[in-house]
């Protein structure tokens, strides 16, 4: 494929939509559809991402198109930014469509503090959060969960973690699915995943995971921003983390299971990472039961991380987190598969929607949107990069027919980690960001280089395309003040 011109074989449908026709690659059951402008398409076509969109279209029972959001880039199995829905009757579930970091996601906590109030105490606040929050390679969590406690978290998600004393019960209304992924079956999680999970709850991890103190630089949709409790100059905290070793092990275990299913059914797939099982089969049901456990662990993990963030603010501002207005705005998972109702060809159908580096973007009135956001649509939290911006978006009606109610999940990388390390020096980057008023703390300088703003696509362009295409609407633009990395 590499000798094709970037858009050869593609059909442009509109300013922001491209079709990958079925003849792009023999074996595609449906076309691919990529939401991108010229520049983002040029970047997508620069690696293997489009081929991965085509590969997903090989999977049995795929409905509509194999989709890619504007932050699409080369992943493994599905592209990052990939969305695909499968019919409950003849479709499949594929662990490769969720990934190893099951329910990796983002949450945003509000404060009633202004940028000017936080700025003088920022360095000590960051140091305190760094001391409070385990992170990095092998970083153990602060909550020990022996087998029995782990089973409770696997079943109860963020609710179980709130009941352990980390946070408030009203936080749960502001998490997708109320903080409890349905259908969790702890008996479908291997002993190995239990072993990896017993001491990792409440740890940030490494790589692209982070905790950032940010401020609202610009409100872009005042009525919705008001409803979300966002105003210019206000300080907020963004937390990006996932299910740690539990998710990695669940995915590894079930890839093995799915690979034997694939072999048994003699299913021809272009990539073993796409191995899958028919929905309704024992293997698919077992995976869905384990997947929900890992998703619950991830939502619980972010709940604990937010709790310690609140504690750090309490200490530094001498007031309770409630009086500091530290309400949760919302918590979204961007690596997930869920059974959802969608209208297909005018009829309601139950589909297994895979979002691999994509976020649900449900509109006002949608049954999955919690009551307090029923009139606006769900908040969508989009982490950008540590040097520029992040965004809060709101779900939109058109996304239901365009993308099974999905939008982007971030900026998306454009530079490999090794290229970033060669080009950028971590310490220089830290100094540069500090000059721009952004404090950064990371376990190692090379990680800073890998996560440098230059290594990512322009997140503003990504969210503009999401808005232009009708997937979501911009509500507020956030700018980092302090960044904590693994």
């Amino acid at each position, binding site marked *: 494929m590499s000798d094709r011109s970037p858009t050869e074989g593609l059909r442009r449908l509109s300013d922001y939509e491209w079709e990958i026709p079925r003849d792009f690659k023999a074996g595609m059951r449906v076309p691919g559809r990529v939401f991108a402008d010229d520049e983002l398409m040029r970047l997508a076509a620069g*690696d293997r991402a489009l081929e991965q969109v085509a590969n997903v279209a090989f999977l049995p029972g795929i409905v509509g198109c194999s989709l890619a959001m504007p932050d699409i880039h080369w992943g*493994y199995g599905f592209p990052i930014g990939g969305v695909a829905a499968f019919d409950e009757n003849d479709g499949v579930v594929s662990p490769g469509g969720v990934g190893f970091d099951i329910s990796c996601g983002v949450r945003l906590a509000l404060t009633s503090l202004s940028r000017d109030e936080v700025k003088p105490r920022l360095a000590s606040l960051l140091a305190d959060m760094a001391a409070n929050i385990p992170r990095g390679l092998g970083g153990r969590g602060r909550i020990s969960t022996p087998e029995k406690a782990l089973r409770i978290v696997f079943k109860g998600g963020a609710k179980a973690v709130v009941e352990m004393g980390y946070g408030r019960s009203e936080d749960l209304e502001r998490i997708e699915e109320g903080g409890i992924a349905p259908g969790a079956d702890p008996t479908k999680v291997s002993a190995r995943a239990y072993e990896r999970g017993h001491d990792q709850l409440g740890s940030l991890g*490494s*790589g692209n995971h982070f905790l950032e103190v940010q401020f609202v630089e610009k409100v872009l949709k005042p009525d919705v921003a008001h409803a979300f409790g966002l105003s210019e100059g206000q300080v907020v905290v963004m937390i990006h983390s996932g299910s740690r070793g539990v998710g*990695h092990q669940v995915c590894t275990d079930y890839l093995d299971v799915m690979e034997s299913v694939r072999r048994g059914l003699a299913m021809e797939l272009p990539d*073993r*990472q796409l191995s899958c099982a028919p929905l309704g089969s024992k293997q698919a049901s077992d995976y869905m039961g384990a997947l929900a456990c890992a998703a619950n662990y991830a939502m619980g993990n972010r709940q604990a991380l937010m709790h310690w963030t609140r504690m750090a603010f309490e200490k530094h501002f001498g007031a309770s987190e409630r009086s500091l207005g530290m309400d949760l705005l919302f918590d979204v998972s961007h690596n997930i598969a869920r059974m959802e109702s969608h209208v297909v060809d005018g009829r309601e159908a139950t589909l297994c929607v895979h979002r691999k580096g994509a976020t649900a973007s449900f509109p006002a009135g949608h049954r999955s949107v919690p009551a307090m956001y029923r009139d606006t649509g769900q908040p969508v939290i989009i982490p950008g990069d540590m040097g520029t911006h992040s965004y809060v978006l709101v779900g939109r009606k058109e996304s239901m027919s365009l993308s099974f109610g999905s939008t982007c999940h971030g900026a998306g990388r454009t530079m490999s980690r*090794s290229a970033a390390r060669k080009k950028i020096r971590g310490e220089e980057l830290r100094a540069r960001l500090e000059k721009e008023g952004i404090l950064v703390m990371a376990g190692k300088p090379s990680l800073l280089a890998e996560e440098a703003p230059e290594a990512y696509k322009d997140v503003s362009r990504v969210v503009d395309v999401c808005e232009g295409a009708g997937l979501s609407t911009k509500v507020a633009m956030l700018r980092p003040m302090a960044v904590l990395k693994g």
Partner: protein
Amino acid sequence: MSATFHTIEHTADIGVEVEAAGVSELFEGAATAMFSLMADISGVRRTERRNISLAASDHVELMFRWLNELLYISDADEMLFSGFSVTVQTVPDGGVALEADVSGEPMDDERHVPGEEIKAATYHELAVSSRDGLWSARIIFDV
């Protein structure tokens, strides 16, 4: 000849290509490559040993299981490994099997220089092949 490896470009993740004179050495080289991404393994002492036995239907599946087995032990027991002695054999009734003796030590923040947090070895474009007596593998890791 011991195995050689180099990293390959991948936008989001990290890949390696490994070459060796034999299949057993190839599996040793792949493990060395993976732990070299995770830490500077020249400083990892070989004070603890583990034995690993695995079977699979082909070399690709065996490579997937081997590397993820090591990641599981590393994550669950907070270990880094630097020594790998591997024997890979074809099983008479079909399939392949691996016996390994691996050595390393518990992670030590004071002495070990951390690298990437590897979530898993993926099946994406995972390849194991031999040509004119030279074995090679291509592995993409999720980081």
